[in-house]
């Protein structure tokens, strides 16, 4: 037996429902699909064989099975056909189901009877020899998806669309129902859905003592025959999705299950994953089969790909065919040790297994026999020990890492990698490559683009300044991260960051300052001053790598525990990780850490307020730059006070379950973003978990704080945002007038509440509300309200309050004063565009209409202020012509300054005199580099123009 496994994949059918069966001798494999052809593969032959085809069916092949002498196919044309084993010789019909799709056919182990499951609410069992001899098993509420026989051929297990597994005894003439097991397999009622194609059959162990089925909780469970209850569970933390197909090896020692793009090989005795095989990504494996005669595993997927893996079970694990004791006895013994609950039935099983098996070896014997060395024994024992501990405690499944705003690949081979308030990154799978489409909501600011992606990036994040992509390692190619800044036409700005071999990227986030205006205009101003932002990469090496937008590695921080997700804001990144473990009672134990890009200091560390048994669904940044989270319980929280170190708390802003619109509807919300008063989300109908294609419209739903008393909501929300905005102010982010406006708004609401309180004579409440007023004029208004309602006591209290306010300055007022000062300084820079200016027109300064002032006579010693004047005034050289007529009795202040300026430059000589053109022409520029002849300055006007042209020269040199 060669030890290396060999994988052969053929594309044999068009995409759609496919099916697979091995012949009884294991020499042939039959595959069927939506091309209505059954192909017969020789298992021995390689990939390039030309399989025989049986093309009698007139519609899609929906099920295949094999008996001793023949094989059977069921087609959507409602007929079941029999063929000679291994050949495409058509022998006749074995039955038909009119008007319903046949979902499954199964021949009993003796090869005598065939059970037919269809969308009808019953299962028909007929003899293969005499198809008119029919037994009916009925009483199902939904169409039957799968049907299987137990190894003795007396029991029939029926997996029904309503999520039940029914066990029927069909050994007698009249079938009797033994048990209906509910709650194991998922209920799938829509026969068109992809989930309906998943293999939910109950797979019997060769001993007939239990059967396995893929559960709705993404485990594989074994149901014991003695009690018809769950006797053991096969679970693995790496399993994130449902098992789409399961199969048992011929001796029952190994179980194969398909999950996502992997096929897991489990040991049924150790109940753990032994190895993993890669299946076709993006295709769903819907049927798995072990060869009955050799170490061969085959599967078929929705893309019509048929894969055979020879030596799928590595030798060190054992043999899938040999009816060894390992499969039964040893397994039973261990399971008895492990399973704490059903003692009796395990003992039962044990006895039965021992009785039913011929070649009994001791467990240890078997291992030594097969491998020839006890070396492998030790790790196995350790594993057992591990398994013991884990089995004793039912541990909450840890949430795996995810990227906010991403979805898994849909049936249409499309997915979202990122969906946020900036834009959408969509991926279309084209088998050999991906097409990545990057689109922005604001098309005026950033340009949408798309590119062909040969790396098949599976993580992405779009930030303010650029989009970052990451791909997993594949074969020889290491994992890598690509950052593409926006607004850069060429590939100049983008960079690639390659991880060492064996490391994976768990999450990426891109953050950066909000663009002041269009990013496309960057090049006009000669480069972007604000840079390309920041990129944070979480890797499987347990670190967070900070990389600047230009591709310079900045720091690598260690991250305690497992990384879960992160989001990047303008100046910080919030990372969610699990420092410890999940707790027994269902808590995920997640912690959020806010780390600033500057100095990498931790601003906050705060556990997430997720209810027990729920998981984090989304993390994002609101448009005010505040961290926000949304969990599967339907709560939205924002982190308030996050800018004050160690003062952060999570404020619950929204309880989607309490929404009026949700009442009586089955819908969920997929968050996209959050702003002051609205929650931006996509609404998912029914049990939908992720948004589909084409892209749904973003819905804006109002944020209502989940207060129990209804009238304060609006006010509190505003207050929170004002406080947050106030915190943000040292960074000059929120414009001051905006905040003032909001404070005024808040005061208006408060005054209304005060009025309501006065009306109902609730004076303490009115007083309490009044204390919260921000502006002094609002207090005056409150005073008036009290006066109106003739509440004199309250009025006096308000008066006292006003007095007290006048004396002391509240922190809010201080902050406002500071903001005002800042606002005044910035005012000229924030000039609004025409038509967007809603302020009063600016005051026009008219110096001509200014009040004249009396002339100031300057003496030689009076111009002490000369040094204070701006240099610019000297450069203009205006004063020559003006000073030519100083005898004007009334002069403006301004002109005096001018006069003084030039005079001081002219060595303060002849201050009171009128500088005549003659004196002027005799002035010499004392500058060694440039000496002009006197005649050059013939006229004052010429001189003036020259001086204006060389201003630097003229004011440096004394004239």
């Amino acid at each position, binding site marked *: 037996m060669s030890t290396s496994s060999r994988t052969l994949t053929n594309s044999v059918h068009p995409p759609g429902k496919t099916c697979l069966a091995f012949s009884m001798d294991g020499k042939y494999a039959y595959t069927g699909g939506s091309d209505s052809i059954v192909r017969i593969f020789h298992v021995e032959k390689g990939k390039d064989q030309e399989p025989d085809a049986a093309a009698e069916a007139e519609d899609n092949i929906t099920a295949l099975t094999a008996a001793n002498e023949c094989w059977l196919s069921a087609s959507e044309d409602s007929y079941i056909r029999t063929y000679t084993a291994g050949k495409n010789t058509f022998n006749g019909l074995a039955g038909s189901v009119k008007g319903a799709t046949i979902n499954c056919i199964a021949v009993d182990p003796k090869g005598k009877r065939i059970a037919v499951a269809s969308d009808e609410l019953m299962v028909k069992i007929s003899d293969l020899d005499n198809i008119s001899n029919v037994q009916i098993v009925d009483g199902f509420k939904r169409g039957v998806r799968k049907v299987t026989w137990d190894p003795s051929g007396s029991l029939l297990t029926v997996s029904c669309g309503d999520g039940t597994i029914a066990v029927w005894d069909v050994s007698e003439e009249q079938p009797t129902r033994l048990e209906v097991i509910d709650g194991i397999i998922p209920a799938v009622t829509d026969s068109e859905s992809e989930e309906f194609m998943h293999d939910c059959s109950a797979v019997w162990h060769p001993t007939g003592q239990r059967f396995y089925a893929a559960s709705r909780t993404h485990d594989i469970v074994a149901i014991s025959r003695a009690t018809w209850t769950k006797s053991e569970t096969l679970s693995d933390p790496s399993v994130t999705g449902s098992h789409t197909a399961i199969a048992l090896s011929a001796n029952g020692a190994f179980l194969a299950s398909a999950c996502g793009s992997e096929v897991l090989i489990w040991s049924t005795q150790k109940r753990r994953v032994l190895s993993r095989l890669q299946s076709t990504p993006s295709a769903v494996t819907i049927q798995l089969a072990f060869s009955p005669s050799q170490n061969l595993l085959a599967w078929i997927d929705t893309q019509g790909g048929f894969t055979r893996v020879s030596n799928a079970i590595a030798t060190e694990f054992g043999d899938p065919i040999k009816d060894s004791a390992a499969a039964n006895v040893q397994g039973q013994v261990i399971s008895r040790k492990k399973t704490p609950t059903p003692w009796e039935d395990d003992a039962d099983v044990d006895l039965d297994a021992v009785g039913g098996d011929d070649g009994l070896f001791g467990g240890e014997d078997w291992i030594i026999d097969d491998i020839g060395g006890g070396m492998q024994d030790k790790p196995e024992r350790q594993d057992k020990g591990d398994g013991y501990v884990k089995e004793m405690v039912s541990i909450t499944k840890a949430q795996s890492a995810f990227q906010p705003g991403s979805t898994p690949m849909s049936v249409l081979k499309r997915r979202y990698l990122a969906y946020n308030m900036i834009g959408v990154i969509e991926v279309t799978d084209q088998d050999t490559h991906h097409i990545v489409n990057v689109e*922005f*909501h*604001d*098309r005026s600011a950033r340009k949408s683009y798309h590119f062909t992606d040969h790396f098949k990036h599976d993580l992405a994040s779009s930030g303010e300044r650029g989009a970052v992509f990451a791909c997993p390692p594949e074969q020889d190619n290491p994992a890598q991260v690509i950052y593409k800044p926006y607004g850069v036409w060429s590939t100049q700005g983008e960079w690639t960051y390659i991880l060492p071999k064996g490391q994976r990227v768990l999450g990426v986030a891109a953050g950066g300052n909000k663009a002041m205006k269009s990013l496309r205009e960057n090049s006009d101003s000669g480069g972007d001053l604000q840079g390309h932002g920041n990129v944070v990469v979480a890797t499987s090496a347990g670190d967070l790598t900070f990389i600047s937008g230009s591709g310079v590695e900045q720091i690598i921080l260690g991250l305690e525990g497992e990384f879960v997700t992160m989001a990047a804001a303008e100046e910080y990144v919030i990372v969610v990780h699990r420092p410890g473990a999940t707790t027994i009672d269902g808590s995920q134990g997640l912690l959020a850490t806010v780390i600033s890009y500057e100095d990498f200091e931790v601003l906050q560390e705060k556990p997430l307020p997720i209810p027990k048994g729920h998981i984090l669904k989304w993390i994002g940044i609101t448009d005010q730059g505040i961290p926000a989270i949304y969990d599967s319980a339907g709560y939205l929280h924002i982190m308030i006070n996050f800018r004050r170190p160690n003062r952060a708390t999570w404020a619950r802003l929204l309880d989607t379950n309490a929404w009026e619109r949700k009442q009586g509807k089955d819908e969920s919300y997929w968050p996209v973003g959050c*702003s002051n008063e609205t929650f931006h989300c996509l609404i998912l109908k029914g049990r939908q978990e992720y948004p589909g294609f084409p892209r749904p419209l*973003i819905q*804006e739903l109002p944020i209502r704080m989940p207060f129990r008393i209804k009238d304060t909501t609006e006010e509190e929300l505003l207050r929170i945002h004002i406080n947050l905005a106030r915190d943000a102010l040292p960074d000059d982010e929120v414009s001051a007038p905006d905040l003032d406006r909001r404070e005024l708004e808040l005061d208006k609401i408060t005054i209304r509440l005060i009025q309501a309180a006065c009306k109902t004579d609730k004076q303490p409440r009115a007083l309490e509300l009044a204390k919260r007023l921000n502006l002094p004029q609002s207090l005056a208004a409150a005073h008036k309200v009290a006066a109106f309602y003739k509440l004199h006591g309250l009025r006096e209290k308000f008066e006292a309050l006003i007095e007290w306010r006048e004396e002391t300055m509240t922190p809010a007022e201080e902050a406002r004063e500071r903001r005002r000062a800042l606002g005044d300084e910035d005012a000229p820079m924030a000039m609004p565009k025409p038509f967007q200016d*809603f302020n009063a027109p600016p005051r026009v300064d008219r110096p001509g209409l200014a009040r004249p002032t009396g002339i100031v006579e300057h003496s030689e010693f009076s111009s002490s202020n000369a040094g204070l004047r701006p240099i610019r005034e000297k450069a203009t050289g205006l004063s020559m012509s003006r000073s030519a007529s100083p005898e004007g009795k009334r002069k403006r202040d301004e002109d005096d300054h001018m006069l003084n300026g030039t005079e001081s430059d002219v060595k303060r000589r002849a201050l009171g005199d009128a500088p005549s053109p003659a004196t002027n022409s005799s002035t010499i520029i004392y500058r060694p580099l440039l000496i002009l002849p006197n005649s050059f300055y013939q006229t004052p006007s010429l001189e003036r123009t020259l001086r204006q042209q060389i201003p630097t020269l003229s004011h440096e040199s004394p004239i």
Partner: protein
Amino acid sequence: MSLPQSLRVSVTPLELELIACEQLVEIVPLISMEKTAFISGAYGPLRPPSKSKVPLWMAINLKLKKKCHIVPPEWLTVDFLQERLSRETSQPQFSKLPFRFAEISKVVLDVASDDVPNADKIRSLLKDLREARQAKSREGLQQIDHSELSLPNLCSMEINEIRPVFVQSMGLLSQLVREPENRAGDV
């Protein structure tokens, strides 16, 4: 309308459309814009992907430049119109619809049919609605008398349609009714 020029005393449908274009609709802008003053008022700011309310004429203008998606009003859905149509056909009175539904739906479907889910179905429903309502207003013509006629929930386009006929014929009727009284007064 197949009326001679002299009888065309009412405004044309195009003019009605122009009037309807002043109504506010919701859009999902694809460009950002500050709050901007127009003669009819200040609209904006536009901040994608947040929705914004602007007059229909502006929405059309932006849509034609591919700078926004128009969010169809909540009455412009298959469910709503279907329900109104069944009410229209089963009950004698006019069902309640937005006053300018005909104009707005026409404009929205003309300009932004890609933003309206099931646009074709909605078109046929609107046509059915119009026919059902037209039949009713013809019936109303029979009840006409000199003094008053009450047709609640009639929409602008329909009023406009029947206005010339109604005004004239009611004028005539009132003349006919008044005549004998006058004569009696003379005597």
